[in-house]
């Protein structure tokens, strides 16, 4: 079923919307949640919560593209659930590794003064991504948006793991430079 039709079902308040969403995007949302939570049951709950949030927010929203809208909800829910479960300790899954890697991008506080809101930061990310070569951008987002393991990215893109790691390292370096250049404190 096409996205617009699924959205129409949400608008018509037909519960078939949930079943159609699950058939089309269940696997996609599950993979996002699983990479963060590394737990089958939690991931399933997260995906179900995603459908509930979609049900509550469509209408009035008419998301286009639907995949990114659902993916974003799943990612936020999974990150919140992770935080709830791991308030103190860092467990399994890709998130602790991803957070460690992102530490490389944090500019030195001595070099930055400006405190930036999240919207401006998202705008900076858009500009940063627009300038990356397509393959590097895809690798960067697979790692830090979808939180896919490096091994999986390497397999999907037919690259060696070290090539993926190198590409990520360079991208993080570029991001750090951009944050410093714009004087952004985190």
């Amino acid at each position: 079923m096409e996205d617009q039709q699924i959205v129409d079902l949400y608008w018509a308040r037909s519960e078939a919307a949930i079943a159609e969403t699950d058939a089309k995007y269940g696997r996609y949302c599950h993979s996002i949640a699983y990479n963060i939570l590394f737990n089958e049951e939690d991931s399933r709950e997260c995906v179900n919560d995603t459908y509930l949030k979609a049900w509550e927010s469509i209408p009035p929203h008419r998301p286009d593209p639907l995949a990114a809208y659902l993916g974003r909800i799943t990612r936020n829910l999974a990150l919140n659930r992770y935080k709830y479960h791991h308030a103190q300790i860092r467990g399994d899954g890709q998130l602790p590794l991803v957070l460690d890697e992102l530490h490389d991008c944090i500019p030195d506080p001595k070099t930055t003064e400006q405190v930036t809101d999240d919207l401006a930061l998202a705008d900076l990310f858009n500009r940063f991504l627009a300038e990356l070569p397509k393959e590097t951008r895809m690798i960067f987002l697979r790692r830090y948006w979808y939180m896919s393991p490096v091994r999986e990215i390497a397999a999907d893109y037919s690259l060696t793991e070290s090539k993926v790691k190198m590409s990520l390292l360079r991208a993080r370096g570029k991001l750090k430079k951009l944050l410093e250049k714009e004087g952004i404190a985190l």
Partner: protein
Amino acid sequence: MSEERLLNALGQVDDQYILEAAPGQTPGKNRAWIKWAALAACLCLVLAAIRIVYRSEPNTAPYEGPEYEVLVFGYSDSAGAADLEAEYLFADYEKYSSVQPQSQVTLQIRNKTYIGYYQNTQYRSYHYYPVYEYFDSENNVFTIDHTGKLVSFFWGKSTADGKKLSQADCLQIAMDFLKEIVDISSYEVEITEDSVSECYVAEFTKYAGNLKTADSATVTVQYNGDIYSYASFMLDKVPADTKVDDIEPAAVTASINKRLDKIYADAKTKYDRIEYSEPSVLLSITKDGNRCLVCYVDVRCINTAGQFEAVVSESINLVLFLP
């Protein structure tokens, strides 16, 4: 924590980047293809050999009557078993791209006046014409089509007090509402209760002969009598007197199955079994004003391992052109 802030900000990047990098997408050049092609080819040969020995196709008498042209117009994005490509586009961009939607419209419905401000233009699935979306100052969202007909309206849950009305009363409210938009005498209506959302859902469908058309509307009425939402599809676009007695059901089934068999010919060598659901069929109208059947089919590609079955499920949308 700074890293988490970065992670959260990254969550807000443009949709285009999120979709571009979604698992399953590869960056342009598909290097893996070359590496695996030889192996896949060998595997296919082995599977084909096994299948010749172990599988037998069901014996059905071949259909030999007239056939209809069938094209693919959509499929689920999880569809991977077949190499699919949309072959037909319902939207008539050429005709409507020059139509400039009004930046502001005044809508009068249910004794109320709404002033809407234009937001965007959309083409719904199997619709040849665009719908224009408007917001009013109270954040009500509604859409109208190119003729100014109301296509959808979302009011949302009202907290107005009131006792629970009967199903018949709510149906009357839904009918009175739709009468303001279209002549409902040619629609059949079915009403169901949704006790979780505390509302009644009235579904209006137009039939041509005994064939369900794509021309339909749904009105959701809360227990207190307030309308929660309204959505319509191809409303008033498929005449109830559209000729249908010349449509040969056996030819429809045979044409759809033949097309599916062609689409899944390659997949049939990779899976133990491929099953098609009974197609759901709606009579509709194309941009040329001709009759067509819009068909939805769920396809299950199954591999068996002992007592277990691994199922890849996808859906495919077909349009069957009627002469």
